[in-house]
């Protein structure tokens, strides 16, 4: 026959069935004829023939069964049967599909994060040939005396020059770091645009940067070596988007000058539309890493990427790196090693541990879901026992029945998987909106074949798993007793199994809830830190002064004075001031040398501190407490005595007393910059720059008057100043008024953003917020699933022991007692799970130490609240089904079966 005829058989099953029936009937008739001829009566002959023949239905089944081609058709029938079963008892199907959807949905969503971050290739040409330059430091710090082992991804000018000179096996390129709100510049599109000043995002890169990334400019080229050296011509490369929108896709843009940062820059290139860079920017300018007065001079503000040259090996690169001289800025107590870390590893190193923890959490959820599915399946099998026994008595083989059950499981699994993928897409869309930009990998969250394969695989694995359980039930199926009683008894063994599953589910939920609890406590702790100022009704505006027009201190002073005055004139504004940084923001890190006090003259006289300049009234506007001395006034001018105001942390850390008025210190190294402390103010919460311990903390800060800033570009190349206004209440159109006030002093100065104090705090706590959101959602999902499991367990128990309860009630037991009895089994399993879960949490929570602030991993409040919450929820879940006992009428149950 062959494949073709087998396929044809598929379609003619009905006909085949009829034909076989006819054939068998003919056989019987002929046998009857023969027996009649040998003397039997027709009735006897017929009976004898039937007996010999056996079960005609089974015979037909077996004959058809031998047809291999019908295998496919059989599957189809099994599928239809499965669908009928689902329609008959939708509860089971809905529960299974819903559980699978939730579990597979979150698993797929998190896996897509994992995939985008760790598995998917970076969106650069041949990304495995790109690496980041890393300096590994080990040794005793000469400042703190403690042993330090860390990786540094920065480079200074000397190291950069050495890299360019020595490393020939790879093309090296430098880029400037970006932090805070400093990643943009003022752009005046000039005659090309509509002459409105814009603020655009920017990045500083060296020559060959785009070569290293494998990006070929759409127009023109990247920077040349001449443009990237100190004093070289100013050049700019535009993003495709910027070129299209602001410059109207002008193909003749190359060679034209545009005004960036107040100076003319020649456009030398435009990037292609699909280009992805590690730092998304609309305009690129040279970083000039070799300039000892440039941005990379400090030592940790620039990074290096390299691409392996054709024909070279990483081994050669490693050898060449080993010959680099040790950097000057490095602490003398450290030993250093240089190496090239593959780019994928480098970019994912921050996020990797977090995503791995999330993956573990969703796997927990999958396990919990499987536990529930197993419970549901066990009950279902008990319910269908009678039906299965009937089928087998009628001639179906065990294999047939099992196969049908597997097809049903598979169908449910596929449905759940499909719905799960849809849920994952939904989650992914919301994640892309909710997650901060640095948490989303380059190129967005993937939904590629790997992710879909994962979803399918997870669904198949779970459905096969809970499709195996019926096989065990079937083996112990006693046809006779099963046919006789329609009881939905679950045998003692599987009841124990279900309680064990519930216990395990609860244990996993405890771990997840505890982790989420710690994160919540961390967030609350950070949010409720005493701010040190009054954050209500305060609005800030930022603008980039990294601009040629404000290099001159006089121009800068004029801007400060006039713009603050203009802000004060806005109706509704109570008070206004300006400063380099605001509360919650990072300040500029700089070195100080203490000139008197207990630490002066010692090696600790050189220290680091955060620094800012402020206008008079800054502390008044923010309502920061003045603890000693005075703050700045109009009498602090460029020619009067250089003064500073420090915060309490500065005073205590460096002078060991709260009142440091009258002390002196030097800013940086040069003796000209000695200042006298005239006031001490309260600590304000901010993102620590010098001593990073937490997202928000207090650290030593000193402030100088804006009028005494000698070189504004020192400050403005890194940070944008903020104009701060305090209003009496919400003022409509406030930000517009602030922009207008700024424009009234300088029409070509665009504001880069407006932020309320709440928004600034949110920005600093982004990571914590996201962690709480994700982990909290997963923990709550686990709690829901566990509660559902407990509900199902007790519910089945009630149904199964209805008769027993009827008897108890008839014999005089009270309703309450009966309910308690039923709820007890669920409660016991839950309590056992809580105990095991707490023990597991003790080990598991230790890994969270680096993510939590202000709480210990063994936080007693969390470890008490979590079990209480769990017991409360699962207690309710266990009690609800027992309410049904109230409806049990002992008389009816005793009679019925």
């Amino acid at each position, binding site marked *: 026959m062959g494949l073709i005829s087998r396929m044809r058989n598929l379609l003619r099953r009905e006909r085949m069935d009829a034909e076989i029936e006819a*054939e068998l009937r*003919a056989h019987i*008739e002929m046998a009857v004829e023969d027996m009649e001829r040998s003397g039997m009566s027709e009735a006897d002959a017929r009976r004898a023939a039937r007996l010999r023949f056996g079960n005609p239905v089974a015979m037909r089944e077996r004959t058809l069964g*031998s*047809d291999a081609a019908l295998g496919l058709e059989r599957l189809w029938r099994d599928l239809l049967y499965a669908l009928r079963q689902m329609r008959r008892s939708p509860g089971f199907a809905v529960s299974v599909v819903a559980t699978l959807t939730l579990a597979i949905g979150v698993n797929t969503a998190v896996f897509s994060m994992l995939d985008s971050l760790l598995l998917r290739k970076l969106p650069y040409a041949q990304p495995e040939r790109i690496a980041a330059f890393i300096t590994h430091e080990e040794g005793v710090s000469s400042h703190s005396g403690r042993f330090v082992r860390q990786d540094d991804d920065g480079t200074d000018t000397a190291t950069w020059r050495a890299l360019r000179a020595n490393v020939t096996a790879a093309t090296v390129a430098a880029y400037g770091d970006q932090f805070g709100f400093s990643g943009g510049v003022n752009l005046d599109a000039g005659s090309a645009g509509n002459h409105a000043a814009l603020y655009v995002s920017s990045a500083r890169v060296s020559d060959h940067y785009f070569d290293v990334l494998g990006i070929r400019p759409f127009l023109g080229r990247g920077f040349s070596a001449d443009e990237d050296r100190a004093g070289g011509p100013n050049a700019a490369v535009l993003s495709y988007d910027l070129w299209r929108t602001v410059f109207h896709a002008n193909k003749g843009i190359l060679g034209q000058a545009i005004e960036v940062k107040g100076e003319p820059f020649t456009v030398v290139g435009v990037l292609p539309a699909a280009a992805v860079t590690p730092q998304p920017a609309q305009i690129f300018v040279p970083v000039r890493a070799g300039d000892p007065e440039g941005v990379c001079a400090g030592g940790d503000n620039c990074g290096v990427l390299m691409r392996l040259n054709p024909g070279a090996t990483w081994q050669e690169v490693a050898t060449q790196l080993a010959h680099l001289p040790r950097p000057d800025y490095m602490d003398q107590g450290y030993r250093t090693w240089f190496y090239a870390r593959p780019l994928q590893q480098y970019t994912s190193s921050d996020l990797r541990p977090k995503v791995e923890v999330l993956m573990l959490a969703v796997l927990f959820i999958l396990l919990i879901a499987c536990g529930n599915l197993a419970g549901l399946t066990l009950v279902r099998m008990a319910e269908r026992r009678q039906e299965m026994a009937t089928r087998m008595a009628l001639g179906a083989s065990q294999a047939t029945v099992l196969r049908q059950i597997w097809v049903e499981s598979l169908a449910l699994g596929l449905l759940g998987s499909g719905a799960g993928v849809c849920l994952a897409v939904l989650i992914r869309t919301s994640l892309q909106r909710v997650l901060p930009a640095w948490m989303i990998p380059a190129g967005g969250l993937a939904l590629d074949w790997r992710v879909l394969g994962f979803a399918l695989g997870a669904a198949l694995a779970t459905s096969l798993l809970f499709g195996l359980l019926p096989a065990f039930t079937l083996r112990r199926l006693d046809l006779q007793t099963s046919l006789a009683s329609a009881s939905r008894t679950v045998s003692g063994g599987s009841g124990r199994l279900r309680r064990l599953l519930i216990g395990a589910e609860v244990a996993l939920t405890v771990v997840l809830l505890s982790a989420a609890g710690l994160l919540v406590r961390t967030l609350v702790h950070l949010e409720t830190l005493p701010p040190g100022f009054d954050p209500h009704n305060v609005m800030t505006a930022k603008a980039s002064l990294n601009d040629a027009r404000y290099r001159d201190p006089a121009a800068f002073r004029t801007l400060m004075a006039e713009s603050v005055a203009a802000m004060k004139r806005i109706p509704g504004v109570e008070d206004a001031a300006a400063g380099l940084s605001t509360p919650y923001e990072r300040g500029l890190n700089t070195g100080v040398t203490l000139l008197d006090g207990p630490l002066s003259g010692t090696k600790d006289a050189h220290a680091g501190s955060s620094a800012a300049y402020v206008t008079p009234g800054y502390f008044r506007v923010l309502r920061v407490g003045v603890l000693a001395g005075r703050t700045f006034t109009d009498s602090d001018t460029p020619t009067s005595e250089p003064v500073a105001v420090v915060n309490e942390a500065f005073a205590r850390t460096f002078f060991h007393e709260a009142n440091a008025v009258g002390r002196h210190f030097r800013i940086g190294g040069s003796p000209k910059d000695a200042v006298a402390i005239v006031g001490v103010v309260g600590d304000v919460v901010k993102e620590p720059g010098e001593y990073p311990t937490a997202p928000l903390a207090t650290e030593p800060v000193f402030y100088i008057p804006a009028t005494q800033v000698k070189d504004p570009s020192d400050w403005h190349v890194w940070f944008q100043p903020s104009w701060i206004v305090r209003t009496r209440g919400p003022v409509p159109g406030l930000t517009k008024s602030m922009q207008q006030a700024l424009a009234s002093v300088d029409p070509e100065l665009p504001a880069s953003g407006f932020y309320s104090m709440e928004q600034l705090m949110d920005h600093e706590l982004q990571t914590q917020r996201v962690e709480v959101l994700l982990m909290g959602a997963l923990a709550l999902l686990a709690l829901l699933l566990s509660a559902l499991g407990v509900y199902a367990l007790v519910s089945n128990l009630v149904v199964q022991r209805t008769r027993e309860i009827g008897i108890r009630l008839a014999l005089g037991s009270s309703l309450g007692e009966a309910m308690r009895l039923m709820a007890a089994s669920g409660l016991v399993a839950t309590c056992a799970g809580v105990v095991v879960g707490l023990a597991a949490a003790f080990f598991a929570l230790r890994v969270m130490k680096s993510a939590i602030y202000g709480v210990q991993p063994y936080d007693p409040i969390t470890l008490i609240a979590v079990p209480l919450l769990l017991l409360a929820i699962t207690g309710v879940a266990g009690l609800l089904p027992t309410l049904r006992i109230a409806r049990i009428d002992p008389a009816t149950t005793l009679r019925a079966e």
Partner: protein
Amino acid sequence: MARNDLQGSLDLLVLKTLAQRGRLHGYGIVQHIQRASDALLQVEEGSLYPALHRMEQSGWIRSEWALTETNRRAKYYQMTPAGRKQLDEAEASFEQLVKGVRAILRYA
């Protein structure tokens, strides 16, 4: 009665029957085997029809509906050339099996 020993040899017996008798329906095959083996072998109808169906799928026999002597419609089976080849092979391997079993029995 060697009722169950037919498992492997059922194909062989059916093919041999058809080779000897030409065209037969299922009932006829059962009767022939019973008679020709002096009632030593009794084919289970439950095994015969699946086997017939399987052999037809494999292309060793072909079937057609026809009338019996008593004007009853029945499905008649006939061997195909491929079936003849299969018969020769099956017969040869069966001879080998018998020879081997005999040798072992004599050895002991």
